[in-house]
């Protein structure tokens, strides 16, 4: 498949009659990474005739394997499906906090958390689907548009992106497009601290786009437009960074005694069709950043990715990917053998 891609590209460049500078900057630095064989389950989600997925920016599973999808449809919707894809229900129809979906995550108690980039809110539903807690407030229509600030107010977000928790229930929020910070709250939603500003130095961010916490409380922040994953301790002190895996649009840490870190170097949603030949793959890593393998590439067919925006990897051999430009969720069954090949960085 890769050979085909390169051939297509050379033909493309020939047809364009020019040789645009190849966008090496978007290509992941990691080379000779083993390919992990995988399959995509066809026709995964079955919606009633009157409901449709739009941009499937959020996907997560709960402890029973039920699948939650937060989508930018005509309006923003949150849908729940059984593990086999049968539609269960819509949660929060017409909710005041739903405007422009960004992410959904399920905590260890199966509470459902959504991050809405349009209303600047993080919303916690209990497993029944009742609103339990809110962080952030939707701006009033007459309010002046929010400005990016070096000292963001503790409880005001500016286009937040993702949420994660440690074992004690502390809440970590990546915020986001407008602010460039990570904020920590206790389990009751009380502000503890916030770090980061816009920039390229360690503990600075350029669009912190996803966040994950491992079982020891270490915090991983996908610093998308700086092409790196930054790692912090539980008090948000900077530890290290992984910068070999391209632009991390979506990251995920699996459960179980041996945790893995997944990161998607998603293809651009802009008009960068040449760059898409070099992006779209998902990496599987050890928590220390060792790259175990990669799988997939950009495209619209089953098993190809249309700008992956969120990953669920509760089961590390069964990854769910929510895509922007193809309006779908894929369930990816990874081959466990290939995943054990280690490659030095």
């Amino acid at each position, binding site marked *: 498949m890769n050979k085909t891609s390169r051939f297509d590209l050379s033909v493309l460049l020939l047809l364009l009659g020019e040789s645009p500078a190849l966008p090496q900057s978007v290509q992941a630095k990691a080379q000779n990474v083993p390919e992990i064989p995988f399959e995509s389950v066809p026709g995964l989600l079955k919606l009633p005739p009157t409901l449709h997925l739009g941009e499937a920016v959020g996907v997560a599973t709960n402890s029973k394997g039920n699948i939650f999808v937060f989508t930018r*449809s005509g309006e923003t919707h949150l849908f729940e499906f059984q593990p086999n894809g049968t539609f269960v229900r819509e949660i929060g129809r017409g909710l005041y906090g739903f405007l422009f979906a960004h992410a959904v995550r399920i905590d260890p108690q199966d509470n459902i958390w959504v991050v809405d980039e349009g209303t600047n809110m993080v919303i916690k539903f209990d497993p029944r689907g009742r609103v339990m807690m809110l962080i952030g407030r939707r701006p009033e229509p007459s309010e002046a548009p929010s400005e990016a600030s070096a000292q963001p107010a503790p409880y005001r977000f500016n286009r937040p992106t993702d949420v994660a928790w440690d074992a004690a229930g502390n809440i970590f929020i990546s915020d986001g497009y407008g602010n460039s910070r990570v904020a920590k709250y206790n389990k009751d939603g009380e502000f503890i601290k916030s770090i980061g500003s816009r920039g390229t130095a360690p503990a600075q961010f350029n669009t912190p786009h996803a966040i994950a916490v491992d079982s020891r409380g270490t915090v991983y922040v996908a610093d998308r437009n700086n092409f790196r994953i930054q790692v912090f301790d539980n008090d948000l002190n900077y530890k290290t960074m992984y910068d070999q895996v391209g632009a991390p649009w979506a990251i995920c840490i699996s459960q179980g005694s041996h945790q893995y870190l997944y990161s998607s170097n998603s293809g651009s949603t*802009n008009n960068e*069709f040449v760059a898409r030949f070099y992006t779209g793959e998902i990496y599987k890593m050890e928590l220390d950043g060792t790259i175990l393998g990669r799988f997939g590439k950009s495209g619209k067919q089953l098993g190809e990715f249309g700008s992956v925006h969120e990953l669920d990897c509760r089961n590390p051999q069964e990854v769910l990917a929510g895509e922007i430009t193809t309006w779908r969720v894929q369930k990816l069954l990874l081959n466990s053998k290939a995943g054990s090949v280690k490659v030095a960085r």
Partner: protein
Amino acid sequence: MRHPFRELFCRMSALLAAGLVLTTVLQGQAPEIAFDSSADFLKLPDGIYFGEVAGIATNSKGHAFVYARGGTTLASTGGSRTFTSGGSRLFEFDQTGKFLRELALGMYGLLFAEGVRVDAQDNIWLVDRGSNLVIKLNSEGRVSMVLGRKPEAAPAPGRGGGGGTGRGGVPGAGVAGDNFNGPTDIAWDTTGNIFVSDGYGNARIAKFDRNGAFIKSWGQKGKEAGQFDTPHSIALDASNNVYVADPGNRRIQVFDTDGNFKSLISNIGAPRAICISPQPPQFLFSSNSNDPAGYEDGEIYKLELDGKLVGRFGRAGTKIKQFGTVNAIDCRRPNELHVGELINWRVQKLTLR
């Protein structure tokens, strides 16, 4: 001494003038094709309205799909951006004109309808000028492919940063790539390659393979061969020639499947909607639609594929058998056309005699 170029110019002007006279005569000579019309063939249930009919297409069973500018457009403010939804609706009717259902209800990106076409496998393709999207639905109405991307939001008044605009470059530059800027229409060749006329902003034709991978793009704003002034409609014949309605330049341009220019068809006014009937002998229909600001022109031409005029019919107006800015023609059966009208908010089924 006369400047040689000036002499040449004079001669060319004379030739052009003669040509204009000739074409006027030819146009005048195009025989009127007699036709009947039904404006209530498609029967809407009480409480459902079309609005401006931007797209009309039939499938192999004769079902009609209408993509119209109707319904309620919503705009909601977030922190610094305004999010829009709604504004266009897709309806399906059976071959007798009976209303079957509304499709794509609440779907993302149905903002400002521009076209609908049905491919050889009865997939339904929507072209939305407001969301810069081409959406492929299977015959059940489920999304099976998306081309382009809806701009995420409109910036709040006086501020930039709408984000994810899905565009690039200045208008008319014919920016290459798989995002659109005001797309207008879609067509396929016999192997399933996809051609999109794009459109109001971009002035180019984009070609994709059957799986939606971008292959190439040609054209930019201009008057030369291979340039466009609002490419507004596109159709392919059985030999995979690509016909592009170029209304701003008052012509149809014909290309091979790789975008190499082959020929021009003119003397048909400003073609806003074109259609090629699928069965041999194939005919090309082209509407010299009236500007929505008035009722000039409006006639539809029937041509052979080489551009030879067969005849013309109709004119602009509000009555039955008159046309209010035809934006789409369906010609699956060349003597039984469906035309979608913007300013008359209706579909007429025409029977040519």
